[in-house]
Structures are given as C-alpha cells and as structure tokens.
C-alpha cells in the first residue's frame, strides 16, 4: 500500500471539517420505560414514524457501538421498539433518539462479492463497501401493474429436472419446499453457480443469497462453495445467522429484496434466494408475541400472510421501456435518474416443512403466493433420487412460457412418460408377468428418472440438457442398463462437446434444436451406447 502524505491527510480532514456547521442540532428523544426480550417500550418520541430507526446513545453493545432499534408499535402512550443489538446493554431511563430514517440499507455495485448483515454492514472482514451507494428503504411497495411484463425469459437453474419440468422464468417466484435435509439449499446454490454462464452474455444474472436463521458455519460453507466455483463475483450474501437477534432475522429478507431491487430497477437481472422464510416467520412471531400483538393460527400474528406476500410481490419483470419504468412507483429520488426498464427480480423462497406437512400455515400461505413450487421429498432423497424433486406435486405456473423452444417440446413427452411411469411403478415388482407395452413404459420411466439424477454443485448448461433429453426422447437409453446411464451421460457429453462445439454454441444461443443436428446427436448417442455395451461385454 502506498503511503499517504501528511498534507493529503490534512486536506481530507479539512474537507471533513469544512461542512461542520456551528448551528444547534435539533432531534427528538424519548425515554426507555421497560426493556426485555429484545423489546423496549419507550415514552416520548411522539413524532416517530412506524418502521423508523432509533438509536440509544447511552447504551454500548459488545463492540462499543450504541444499540439501534426499529419502531414497530405505535401505541397511545408508548412506542414499542425492537432492538437490533443486545438488550442487556439497554437500561430503564436511557435516552432514545430518532434518526428520521426509515429502515434502509446502502446498496451499490460494490456489494458484489460481499457478505453483509441485514443493516448493510459488511461482515466478511474485507473492509468497507466501495463505490457509490444508494440508500434504499427495506420496505418498498412492489411495482404496479403498468410497470410489469409477463415472464418470458428463462432463468436456467442448470438442474435437468427443473429446467425441463418446472421451468423458472426471470421475474418469477418459485418456492423451494421440503423437509429438512432434502437438498433445498443445494437446489438454490446450484442455480447461483449456473448463472456463471450468463455473466458473459448480454443479460447477466446477479445473485443474492439471504441466509435467515442458518448456522453461521453453513453460511461460511456456502460462501466457500461460491468462491471456489467463481460464483461469488456476481453474488451478494445477506446473513442473519441463528445467533442474530429476532429483528435481524425478520428484516434480512427485506434487505435482500432491497439489494435485488437496486439491480432490477437499473435494468439488470437479479435472483434472490430467501433461505428460509419459515425461520423468518418464526422470528416475526417472536417479535409479535413480545409486542403483545394478538396471536392467530399456530400463534403467528394476523399479518404473517402480508409479511410474505409483500416481500414476494417485489419480484417482478419490469417493462422494457425506460420512460414508463422511470415513472415507477416508490422509487427513491436518488435512484430515479438511473432507472432503466427491462430488468427483473426472480425470487426463490425456501420453506422447510415438518414431516412433509405442506398443509401447515406458513407452507400453504407461501404456496398460494408464489407462481409454483419445487417439492423435495424425503423418500425420494433416501432412494437416491437426487435432486429429490417430486415431479408430481411440483408445478411452475408461469415458467412454461419462458422455456426455450426445444426444451419445451421435449418436456411435453417427458412429463407424460413420468406420469405414466408413476402410475405403473407399483406393478414393477411383477416384472415379466406384465404385458410388453407396460414393460416398455416401465423401462423408459426407470431410465428417465435415472437421467434426471444430478450431482450437487454440477449444474449443466441448457444445450447439454437439451441433447440429453433428446436422446431419452427417442428411446435410445432403453438399450442401456439403468446403472450405465450416468457413465453414458459423461461420455456422451464429452463426445458431443468435442465433435459439435459450434452446433452446441448455436443451440445455446438460439434454443432451437435443428432436425439435422438432432439426427447427428442421435447418431453420436448410438455410437457411444454401442461402445459402452461392447466394453461391458469384453
């Protein structure tokens, strides 16, 4: 690092001091009446707004900084605030100061590659956030109808089963739901890693991973995976680990949304993963009960539906018209000159179910808000079908229109095959007693399921997915034993990649599999299968 000259230091100091007025500062205060369980009741603060940040200058947390809080309850004679820091530092009678700042976060391009807490402070030890930042409110109204467009562009997850059967489009909200240990986070991380391919294209996807109530070690692990795969460069992690105070866990998804909105409104594409919203709901329940709001079903407060619906509504595909986009509602003035149309914010919320119970309160709420769900099943996971996607109960309500052409064509028959296979699966144990057509269907189904299996952190580019599905579609895999499919996949993709690199690149950009190239693919696949079978016999 180069040395800073003393005259430079004094110049900077003088600049800092120059704007220092001699006038008296005017602010509003209140007094802490009672404090406990991360909640403080304050007398005074008569002009405070709901959602405003307040500081307690007399209190000092572990790091020596004053504790901050957010106003949640405005009552007749007192104000209920939630504390972001340790409540043990706050005492009765201390002064509470208004900041006149509705909870906001500093957002800018400098956030890429960083890990921040829900208040926007970096927590990765890499120093301050560099570059210009904009202060965006955590709670912002979702764009209205006229500023939106239907979902039409695909967001490739790189997972064969999802891209073919439950496609996700840019601007969509697709729920990832399942029991603990079924690979929900892996699906999300795979999707982030797969966006690496988009970074060189015209429409790169920026990823935001919001960890709510996760183990800090898990978050560190995820960060490591993203760094190793080179995905951290275009990602932001917002973390409120299990040790963070409930208010932090409650606002973390809103911080993620605010970061995503910055990219969405500046005409770029962003993907935000809320991992997971059930923990956020639990944190919000804790706050609500402590604030003595009336409990409802499962003790969640009445507005827990609104909590998730207003968050997920902010995912949107913005109209591709700069003029209209600039008049969008609720844009902070600071950001307005930068606003461009055509951006999108895709949301992948995660919900953890208990023993597969999707009819619990929070899961049903979020299912009804989102545009479809990816359901992960414990039984499938234990059978070795990974990703453990239950294609029967998973749906995507809008993604179909965002699928690339060839993929759409192939997925139609794929869906049918799998549905028929599931129906007949129970009879599989009768084996040779079945008629030939049933046996053929079972045979094909088994191979399709095997083909849709995929290792974790190994997303496939869309053109590779298409050619694999094409081979399955024409029924070539039936010749192979089920155990040989993964080997075939590796060899086949290698051969195709080497032989037809130009055609593959064209397929990737156009999404159309020409008849000619299709025939070449089938021929190559035949060749690879013959080789494999010959090698096995020998």
């Amino acid at each position, binding site marked *: 690092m180069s040395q800073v000259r003393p005259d430079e230091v004094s110049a900077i100091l003088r600049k800092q001091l120059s704007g*220092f007025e001699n006038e008296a500062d005017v*602010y*509003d205060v209140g007094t802490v*009446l009672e404090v406990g369980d991360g909640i403080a009741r304050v007398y005074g603060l008569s*002009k405070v707004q709901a959602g405003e940040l307040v500081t307690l200058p007399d209190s000092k947390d572990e790091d020596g900084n004053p504790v901050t809080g957010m106003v949640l309850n405005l009552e007749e*004679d007192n104000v209920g605030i939630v504390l972001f820091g340790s409540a043990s530092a706050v005492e009765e009678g201390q002064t509470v100061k208004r900041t006149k700042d509705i909870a906001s976060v500093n957002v800018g391009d400098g956030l890429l590659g960083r890990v921040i807490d829900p208040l926007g402070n970096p927590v990765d030890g890499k120093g*301050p*956030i560099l570059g210009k930042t904009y202060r965006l409110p955590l709670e912002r109204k979702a764009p209205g109808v006229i500023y939106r467009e239907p979902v039409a562009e695909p967001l490739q997850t790189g997972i064969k089963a999802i891209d073919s059967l439950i496609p996700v489009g840019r601007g969509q909200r697709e729920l990832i739901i399942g029991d603990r240990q079924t690979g929900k986070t892996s699906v999300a991380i795979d999707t982030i890693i797969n966006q690496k391919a988009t970074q060189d294209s015209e429409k790169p996807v920026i990823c935001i991973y919001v960890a709510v109530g996760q183990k800090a070690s898990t978050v560190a692990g995820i960060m490591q995976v993203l760094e190793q795969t080179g995905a951290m460069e275009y990602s932001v992690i917002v973390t409120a680990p299990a040790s963070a105070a409930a208010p932090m866990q409650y606002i973390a998804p809103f911080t993620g949304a605010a970061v995503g909105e910055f990219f969405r409104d500046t005409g770029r594409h962003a993907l935000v993963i809320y991992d997971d919203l059930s923990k956020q709901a639990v944190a919000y329940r804790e706050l609500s009960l402590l604030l003595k709001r009336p409990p409802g079903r499962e003790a969640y407060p009445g507005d827990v539906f609104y909590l998730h619906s207003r968050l997920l509504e902010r995912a949107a595909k913005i109209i591709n018209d700069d003029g209209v986009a600039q008049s969008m509602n609720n844009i902070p003035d600071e950001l307005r000159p930068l606003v461009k149309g055509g951006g999108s914010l895709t949301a992948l919320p995660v919900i953890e179910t208990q023993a597969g119970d999707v009819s619990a309160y929070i899961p049903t709420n979020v299912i009804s808000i989102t545009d479809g769900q990816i359901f992960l099943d414990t039984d499938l996971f234990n059978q070795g079908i990974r990703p453990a996607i239950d294609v029967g109960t998973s749906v995507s309500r809008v993604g179909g229109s965002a699928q690339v052409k060839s993929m759409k064509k192939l997925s139609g028959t794929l869906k049918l095959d799998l549905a028929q296979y599931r129906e007949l699966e129970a009879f599989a144990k009768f084996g040779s007693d079945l008629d030939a057509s049933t046996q053929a269907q079972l045979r094909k189904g088994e191979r399709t399921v095997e083909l849709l299996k995929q290792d974790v952190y190994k997303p496939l580019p869309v053109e590779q997915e298409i050619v694999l599905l094409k081979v399955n579609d024409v029924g070539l895999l039936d010749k192979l034993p089920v155990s040989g499919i993964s080997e075939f996949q590796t060899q086949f993709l290698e051969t195709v990649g080497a032989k037809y690199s130009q055609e593959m690149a064209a397929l990737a950009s156009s999404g159309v599999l020409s008849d000619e190239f299709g025939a070449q693919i089938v021929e190559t696949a035949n060749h690879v299968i013959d080789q494999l079978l010959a090698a096995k016999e020998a």
Partner: protein
Amino acid sequence: MLVSKAARRYAIALLELSKERKSVEATLSDVQFIESTIDDSKELQIFLKSPIVKPSVKKEALSALFKDHISDLTMQFVNLIASKERAAILYQVSKSFITKYNTYAGIIEVEVRSAKKLTEKQVKELKTVLEKTTSKNVILTATEHEELKGGLLVKIEDTVIDGTIKHKIEQLEERLLDNTIELN
C-alpha cells in the same frame, strides 16, 4: 411517565368540573399539594398502593390528611377516587391533571441544561425567546451538567435543541469515523 387510562380519565373529569365551577386555579394548587405530599412521603406511596390496606381505611386516611388543606371540590374528588378503590392511582391522576392543565392554559415545561450555572439575566432572556418562538407560557427548569463542557441544551417536550460542545464533539467523531470513505 406512563399514566394509566383510568388516571387520565379521572384527571379530565376533574379539570372539566373545575372549569365549570370556575375554580381551575384553586384546584390546580390543591392537586399540586397532593402531588408533592405523595412525592415526599415514601410511606404514603406504599400505603396507597398496598392491596392489604382496606379501601375504607385509605379513604379515611386521605381525608384526614388533606381535609384542612384543600377545597371541597378536590376533597370530594379524592373521596370519590378512594371509594372507587382507585387510591393507588391518585398520584398518577394528579400528574395527569397537571399535564392537562398545562395544555389547557398553554403552558409548556422546558428543561435547560448547561455546563455552568446560568445567570438570572440569561434565564430571563432565554425564557423570553422561548416564549416568543413557541407562543406559549414557558416554565423553565435549568440544571447544570459539567460533562456538557459548554453551550446549551434546550428540551421542549420530546424535541431537543442541542448546542452543547459535547454533542458537537460526538458529531465530529461520528463523521470522522464514518466507515464509508469516498476517495476521488
């Protein structure tokens, strides 16, 4: 301080009634007397709050205490509160009454903190300025706080006008430590 809804309602009732009878000032001095009496005596506070003491005993005690010092209206009011088993909130009622009276009479309480004791002339000038800007009658309480180092802090209800050296230094520190550094 936090005043219960009941206390506020009793206070409003008393103020309205004394307005009707045109004895607001007299009632105010009575209530101030009650307030300071309770404030000064820890025993009386405990006595009034205690659930063990019978309401009738509280009533008798209160009447014995205040009978010769306050007007009939206020005495009747104290008796009413005691017979409604609300003696415990008497202190809150009197506090609340004073606040209500202040709004009624256009009085605001202003707290002034300074590093050194203000001269009488300074207090007077400050009061005139404050009365002019707020267009209300100002009751000024001035206190000394050495740690302020210099300057004045004026607190009008919830709003603080802070011109102390201590606050200035804190602001400066904050600005210099501000972690977002913009290098051009």
